[in-house]
């Protein structure tokens, strides 16, 4: 079987049309980025996220309602995986000041339930924990065990035998779990996943991600400059910018539009972007390699014709490899689970745009450059 045998298409002749298409895609994407914005996951934004697995199916709307007025502001609630999974997310790192007393009251209530009228005093309270002192070490140990069994995160302040102080963690996730335990009594749950990322780490990760993408582009520019001509390297790198920026635009455009597909930018997505860069450059290099080879053979052939010929010759390889990679990534998209969905979606789109750009951006730019400068591009 063979497709595109003896293909003879004047690709470069169409390049103006595709320039317009590329610019249009780019503008649509950037307008969406400007007005709708990009949504970052907690990897970059910082915040808390928990995934709970209930025993019976739950209604997202109900959970959303339950969590609406607990003082955490906007809490995002959605399903995770099957209909028994719930993901709860907030940008907050720690319990807000206003509801802090409520959380402490809840602890007091529970202490009184376990041992009514036991004397205790709160000796320290920070944004993340409350330290409570009891009269004797035995009461402290009892409280630590009992409150722990009820889902509070309790601990001794020190391992000394006469320790009388108990520390109770009051993080966001703890508070959410506490509230849900109270409100969804008939449907117990387990914590499947719990993430908390500090804002400083988020900033660092963001900086690292941007640096990684830029650095890889520079490295590619240098390598291709050596292996081919500088103009080829520039064409290839512009094509890569084109791919990455249009995909970013797609993220802004499609966010929230496709149910079940959560297009947030988190760490795996950045990995997908770099892979996209890798795939796209792979494709471009193979076209360029053929151009280089043809240039050595047909020294007098006009550049446009030569590039057309090279693209036509490599077209069946371009399509076949694109197809097999798409197949594998599509399987990943279907079966890889929630965690990898955005990742494989990025690659699906990236393979298509990467293939497109190696012809209509990278090669086309080489033609335009040569025509502008009237210089002959040649390999010896």
């Amino acid at each position, binding site marked *: 079987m063979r497709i595109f045998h003896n293909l003879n298409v004047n690709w470069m002749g169409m390049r103006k049309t595709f320039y317009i298409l590329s610019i249009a895609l780019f503008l649509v994407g950037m307008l969406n980025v400007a007005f709708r914005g990009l949504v970052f996951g907690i990897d970059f934004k910082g915040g808390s996220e928990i995934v709970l697995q209930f025993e019976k199916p739950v209604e997202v709307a109900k959970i959303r309602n339950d969590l609406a007025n607990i003082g955490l502001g906007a809490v995002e609630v959605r399903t995770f995986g099957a209909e028994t999974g719930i993901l709860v997310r907030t940008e907050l790192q720690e319990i807000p000041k206003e509801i802090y007393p409520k959380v402490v009251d809840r602890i007091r209530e529970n202490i009184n339930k376990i041992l009514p009228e036991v004397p205790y005093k709160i000796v320290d309270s920070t944004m993340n924990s409350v330290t409570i002192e009891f009269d004797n070490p035995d009461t402290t140990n009892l409280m630590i065990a009992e409150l722990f069994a009820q889902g509070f995160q309790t601990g001794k302040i020190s391992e000394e035998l006469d320790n009388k102080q108990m520390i109770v963690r009051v993080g966001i996730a703890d508070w959410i779990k506490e509230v849900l335990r109270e409100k969804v009594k008939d449907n117990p749950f387990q914590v499947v996943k719990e993430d908390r990322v500090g804002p400083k780490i988020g900033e660092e990760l963001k900086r690292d991600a941007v640096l990684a993408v830029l650095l890889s582009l520079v490295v590619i520019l240098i390598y291709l400059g050596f292996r081919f001509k500088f103009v080829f390297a520039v064409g290839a790198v512009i094509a890569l910018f084109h791919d990455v920026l249009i995909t970013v635009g797609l993220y802004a455009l499609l966010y929230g539009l496709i149910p079940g597909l959560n297009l947030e930018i988190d760490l795996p997505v950045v990995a997908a972007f770099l892979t996209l860069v890798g795939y796209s450059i792979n494709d471009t290099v193979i076209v360029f390699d053929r151009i280089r080879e043809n240039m050595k053979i047909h020294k007098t052939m006009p550049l446009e014709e030569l590039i057309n010929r090279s693209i036509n010759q490599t077209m069946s390889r371009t399509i076949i*490899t694109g197809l097999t990679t798409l197949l594998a990534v599509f399987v990943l998209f279907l*079966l890889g689970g929630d965690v990898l969905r955005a990742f494989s979606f990025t690659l699906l789109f990236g393979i298509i745009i990467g293939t497109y750009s190696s012809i209509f951006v990278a090669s086309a730019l080489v033609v335009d450059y040569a025509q502008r400068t009237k210089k002959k591009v040649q390999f010896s």
Partner: protein
Amino acid sequence: MKEYRFRIIIILAAIALSIYLLYPTFLDYQNNKHIQSVVEQKKQEILKQNPKISKSELEELLTIVEDSVKQSDPSYIENRLKRLKLGLDLQGGMRVVLEVNTAKLLEKLANNPDQVFNSLLAEAQKEAETSDESVVEILARKLQQKGIRLSRYFGNIRMDDAEIIDQLKKDSEDAVTRAMEIIRNRVDQYGVSEPSIQRQGSRRIIVELPGIAKEEEAKQLLQGTALLEFRLVKDPEFTYQIMERIDKALAKVLAAGNDSLLAELSDTTKKSDTTAAADTTQKQLTEEEFKQQHPFFSVALLDPQGRSADAFVKEDDRNKILRWLSLPEIKKEIPDNVEFVFSAKPISTTQDGKKVYFMYLVNKQPELTGGVVTNAVATLDPNTSAPIVNMEMNSEGAVEWARITGANIGKRIAIMLDGKVFSAPVVRGKIPGGRSQIEGMENLDEAKLLEIVLKAGALPAPVDVIEERVVGPSLGEDSVQGGLNSALFGYLAVAIFMIIYYRQSGSIAAGVLILTILFILSVLAGFKATLTLPGIAGIVLTIGMAVDANVLIFERIREELATGKTLKASIDSGFSKALSAIIDSNITTFFTGIILYQFGTGPVQGFALTLMIGIASTLFSALVISRLIFDYLASKGAKISIG
């Protein structure tokens, strides 16, 4: 045939090496299945015998069973260490990034802090959250702006600001070291398998605890202060007597064998021994007898010359001893005010690589606790140039210390952190004034460790959790299943496509692809790398992209055939002409992999690694293995259809 010999040898060697590297993973999988079935069986038995058993009790019993099965055969552990490791996102577990809270540390270090200092410190802390400057630098700047010298709060009056800043920076780095040591010590105690505790930069610690079931308990391990204690070590005669009594009582309990669990334990030990020394039957018998008559002394080995009663215990035997000691029959042989404890670090290793620990008998009640230590410095003795640690105490502690040392000359005092012995020096004489010198360390590293331990009691390192990720085991299992399915169906889809499109050549490519995957997995196992979910994604992606090299070659061969060349010539020029495209394109992708590895963390690094290994194995498979198959078939005159 001769011309192919070299290549065949290389390929077979590569395949053999891969299988060798992956074999432990396979065995470990089998072992796990076996252990699971034994535990399940035991669970049913226990439930039958005692249907009202509480959940936590049942879990505890089952852990014991699991441990004893694991320990019964040393190859279990060996295989486990060599297997292909799964990342936290696949097997579940916890990853925590801790950062030393410099502001809190400065507050503790400051002499006579006043209102001005506290408010400036608060400001500095706030500023540091959004700046690259450290709290120390910001605070120093703020103090200087106000015209206050740093020596007003830190160090002594003779030091200038720059010196103090250096000192404070060093102090905050020390705090990280201390926190790491405390965490390592606790994690060891908790019994997490394969924990990873790494330092990142100057202030951060990354702790990874795979397979933690009770994550909330584990979180407690990481915070709170460490307990430093000084406890009296019992003298050898007394310790020996107690051990002898335990030994007798234990022999009786084991002989009676009414406890099914203990029977199981002695069972498994027997089994492992018969396999270990089946050839020396005569000696074996006496060892067996010794084991029956002196079960305690067979695991807690004493110095044959009887100079000390510090028993040598192998790492696997520590839990066994602790279980024995908790039996009511044994408990009543031990006085209430003493207990057995182990050394924190191994003192040596046996020939088969097992770590050996000391076991001490110490008083339960500490003589002193760590709050009294004000400073500790590891250094070399100026006279003997032996490593020593100088320890200072506050006035309150010094008085007590003088009394304790005076009353216990010639005895030993164990320095313990969180219940483990770090050192047990002998008291030479009464120490007034609280300044003590501790000797007897092997090298300066050991002395440094003791310094850290002593300071951990004096100056706990305040750490904050700045990132925390917990993956439950069920999500991990789902991810593994999803990943495996994707890899399988991804492979099938690509293979079917290739066979339809390229016929025989396609089936060669599809077959070679299996080897590529084998290579990727074995290299991961060989490098002791971790397979993460994005790592599996990397493999699936490689499956799709790996055929690229083949496609390039096949398309070239088709072109060459079209010019009328023979099959053999077409194969030759097909491979050689496709080479530059294959190399250039793969090298650029490899570069992005390296960058991804440099910048990424955890799972993303796993992805980058599989991608890079994938590229390397793809090149080998396409350029060496496929080539050989083509050359061989062509030389035989076979016709290879290429679609």
